[in-house]
């Protein structure tokens, strides 16, 4: 997988694979206006884990938003992160967390963050307002909060793409089978809807067909998950390691973690 996508902007049919690395590169090579847009795009993608980390560090909402802005402006866009990315291109999640920790623990930066920016902030926070930020257990560390929010954002993106991929191609029943048999039982702790009932509800010919649809949807889920994770790692082999590490990190949070409304 290419780490730095050197595709030039502007070609009508040109594919531009969006990875954090390509976004960073793009943000650093464009003129001021376009650069601002690129930074906003980065912020839109990665603000949740940063914000969650800062809240867990004890910052109130306004402080956390302010520091999130400051972090993306001065660190993500700044020379430091880009140079680190060049050396450590395999681990964007770790890189971001390490840089964030350094940013917050730097008293000077933290204290002067507000003073450096205009009142409205250079980086837009429009995308932040109105979104729910995943909150882990009350005893979670800032790092756990970061990983938790990262995984949540990752899975939301994957599920969103999975749903759109089916609904946009007239195969919404695949999504519905996946939702009823896998997604909601896992996320909400509800019993899977029995296949015969699901078939009747969705107009599927037989439970066997529904079962096959579920296998197909799971395979697609996996494929999309790997694509999304692949944006943050260096090569194919690292994708499984990254998923395993996220599973491990989430598992370590303990069964009491999370504000689970469904027990």
């Amino acid at each position, binding site marked *: 997988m290419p780490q730095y996508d050197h595709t030039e902007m502007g070609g009508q049919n040109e594919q531009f694979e969006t990875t954090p690395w390509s976004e960073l590169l793009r943000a650093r090579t464009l003129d001021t206006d376009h650069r601002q847009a690129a930074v906003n795009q980065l912020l839109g993608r990665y603000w949740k884990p940063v914000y969650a980390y800062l809240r867990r560090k004890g910052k109130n909402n306004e402080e956390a938003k302010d520091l999130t802005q400051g972090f993306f402006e001065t660190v993500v866009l700044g020379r430091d992160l880009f140079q680190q990315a060049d050396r450590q291109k395999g681990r964007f999640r770790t890189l971001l967390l390490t840089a964030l920790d350094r940013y917050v623990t730097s008293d000077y930066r933290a204290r002067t963050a507000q003073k450096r920016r205009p009142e409205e902030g250079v980086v837009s926070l429009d995308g932040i307002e109105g979104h*729910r930020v995943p909150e882990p257990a009350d005893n979670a560390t800032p790092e756990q909060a970061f990983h*938790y929010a990262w995984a949540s954002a990752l899975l939301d993106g994957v599920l969103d793409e999975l749903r759109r991929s089916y609904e946009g191609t007239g195969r919404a029943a695949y999504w519905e089978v996946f939702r009823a048999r896998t*997604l909601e039982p896992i996320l909400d702790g509800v019993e899977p809807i029995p296949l015969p009932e699901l078939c009747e509800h969705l107009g599927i010919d037989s439970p066997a067909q529904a079962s096959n649809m579920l296998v197909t949807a799971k395979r697609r889920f996996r494929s999309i998950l790997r694509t999304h994770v692949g944006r943050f790692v260096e090569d194919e082999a690292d994708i499984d390691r990254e998923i395993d590490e996220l599973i491990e990190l989430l598992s370590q949070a303990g069964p009491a973690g*999370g504000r689970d409304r469904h027990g």
Partner: protein
Amino acid sequence: MADRTADRSPHRMADLLGVGREAAGLDSPATALAALLEAPASPEPASPAAPAAVLGRPCHELRAHAGKSIGELLTAPDTDLAALATLKDYAKELVRRARLDSQRSAATALYYAAIAAALVGHGRRITSYDMGKLAEGLADLLARPWLPPELAGMMARARAASERG
């Protein structure tokens, strides 16, 4: 983008990630168990998966066996009961943490292997399971085609011992 996963417990999200991982068909109990058996029985938390890291304490009981793999400890006749009990506790915690069926199966095999090693090598039962339940568990595992021969042989002897009571 919908906030579908916000506020769900970390374990639920791990389970969902596990669906993506498991559907790969890349994991099997055989490979998961092989990885467990090949891992060094380090007394220190040398890696996140090491016994000391998983159990959250230094494993002094393993210090005398430093340099050996977990598989070697299970099959060596001179492995002491304390080390086997630690491996059993380690496996139990791995079962609790497992997000994939393959990992759960492998950890369960490790759990019974430690118990079987204690029963065969020392004539001691290091579990609260009674002999009947132990025999049932061992029989269930012995039916699995992915169980390596060295563990299967030991478990078969342990099963026979547990059936004798």
